[in-house]
């Protein structure tokens, strides 16, 4: 089973990925291909390894075995060491945007500076040019008027939208979302979801870890259910959410659909 059609180029490839924390095996051979412009949602109960998988994609976690590729380039390179690997991974990461559950905005920088820091320092963009770009991205997440404000003055939803703008400003090939709305008050979830829907419309390749089934069903091209470090089931959202093959998927969905209002 795969989302690929013959014409799709794979943007992210996860091949037989294994990861252990000490004796605890958290990823037990995960495979997933995300074609360019497609959106994959990863769901699963707490501790199933979703975050670890997502973090492995941009090497915030170092995998023990397997291969991860971004646009054909291998991300993990056990053969590379020291500074050479540093250069390699920093370059790779510039092409991947990551959005965290707790936003992780830089509190010492204004909203605009949060967005422009990476383009200026990593791409050598002039301040003026970077700020134009930064304002454009803030505008896209609906926060043009907050450019000069510091993060501590923003609501959770606004913070997360700035975090998305910050990642987008590097013009990444793929966006990784790790429970982007889990830390938000319920009434702030929708504004962040809206931004993500906009990205979907623009055919951004996305890997989304989420507990929001309705959103996942709506926005994704492919859904994947993880448990205990393995992929239990995956498929198109229609099939996956309305008629899953596996009992464990059904149980999980039943619990989660009933707990959502």
């Amino acid at each position, binding site marked *: 089973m795969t989302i690929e059609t013959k014409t799709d180029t794979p943007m992210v490839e996860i091949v037989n990925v294994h990861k252990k924390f000490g004796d605890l095996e958290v990823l037990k051979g995960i495979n997933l291909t995300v074609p360019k412009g497609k959106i994959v949602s990863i769901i699963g109960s707490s501790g199933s390894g979703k975050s670890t998988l997502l973090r492995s994609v941009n090497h*915030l976690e170092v995998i023990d075995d397997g291969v991860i590729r971004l646009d054909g380039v291998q991300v993990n390179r056990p053969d590379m060491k020291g500074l050479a690997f540093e250069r390699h991974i920093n370059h790779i*990461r510039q092409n*991947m945007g990551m959005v965290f559950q707790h936003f992780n905005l830089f509190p010492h920088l204004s909203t605009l500076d949060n967005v422009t820091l*990476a383009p200026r320092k*990593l791409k050598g963009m002039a301040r003026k040019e970077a700020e134009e770009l930064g304002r454009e991205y803030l505008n896209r997440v609906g926060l043009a008027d907050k450019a000069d*404000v510091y993060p501590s003055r923003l609501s959770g939803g606004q913070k997360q939208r700035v975090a998305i703008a*910050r990642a987008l400003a590097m013009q990444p090939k793929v966006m990784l979302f790790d429970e982007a709305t889990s830390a938000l008050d319920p009434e702030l979830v929708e504004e962040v979801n809206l931004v993500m829907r906009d990205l979907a419309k623009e055919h951004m390749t996305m890997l989304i870890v989420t507990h929001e089934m309705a959103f996942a069903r709506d926005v994704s091209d492919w859904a994947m259910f993880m448990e205990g470090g393995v992929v239990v089931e995956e498929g198109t959202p229609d099939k996956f959410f309305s008629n899953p093959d596996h009992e464990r998927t059904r149980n999980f969905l039943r619990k989660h659909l009933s707990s959502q209002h």
Partner: protein
Amino acid sequence: MDVNLMVEVTPLLIKAAWITIDISIRAIILGFGVACVLVFLRSLQIKPLQWFSRGYVSVIRGTPYFVQLLLVFYGGPTIGLTMDPFTCGVMVGAFNIGAYMSEAIRGALESVESGQNEASRSLGFGRLQTLTYVVLPQAAGLMIRSVGVLAIVLVKNSSLVSIISVVELTYQAQRLIGSTYKPFEIFTLTAVMYICIVYAVMGIVELAYRRATRYTTLVKRVQ
């Protein structure tokens, strides 16, 4: 109380106070360098260097400053380490405060939550860039405060270098008492001068602290 005498010796004590300030500033600047090296060695993933750094800090913290001073000044020549008293005062002060400062700096760096580091790395910043643009600006406030406390301890400890006859404030005071037999007047003046120096340091630290943590109170970016 002999006020005339106090007026008379004040210029001499002020002159000596400058030596106290001089020796302290040099020791703090040099000590900061020592601390940075220690933090750097500790951060490398090379066990012997980590052990060295930790061991060094333990030895300094486990022995009195006074003994360190005597050991280097009187014991140093035995292993070919001969210094004039002023240099010795600076060096022992620097290597002493450096150990404490390295712990303060490490603590401040570690106080920045790990999510900041991850956010920076995920954008493609390297370790050094992450340190410069993300971690240091956030650690600076705490770092300044804890280094400030250490600097004050150093200023006060500098009175101990009178034992190796550096003509700083305390030494000068003792010398003047030797010729005037007025310990009350002269030590009172000496104490006042230490207070002035210490409060000046506290003031500078506070200003620097406010500057470094200004972002926490700012609503809007200043152009």
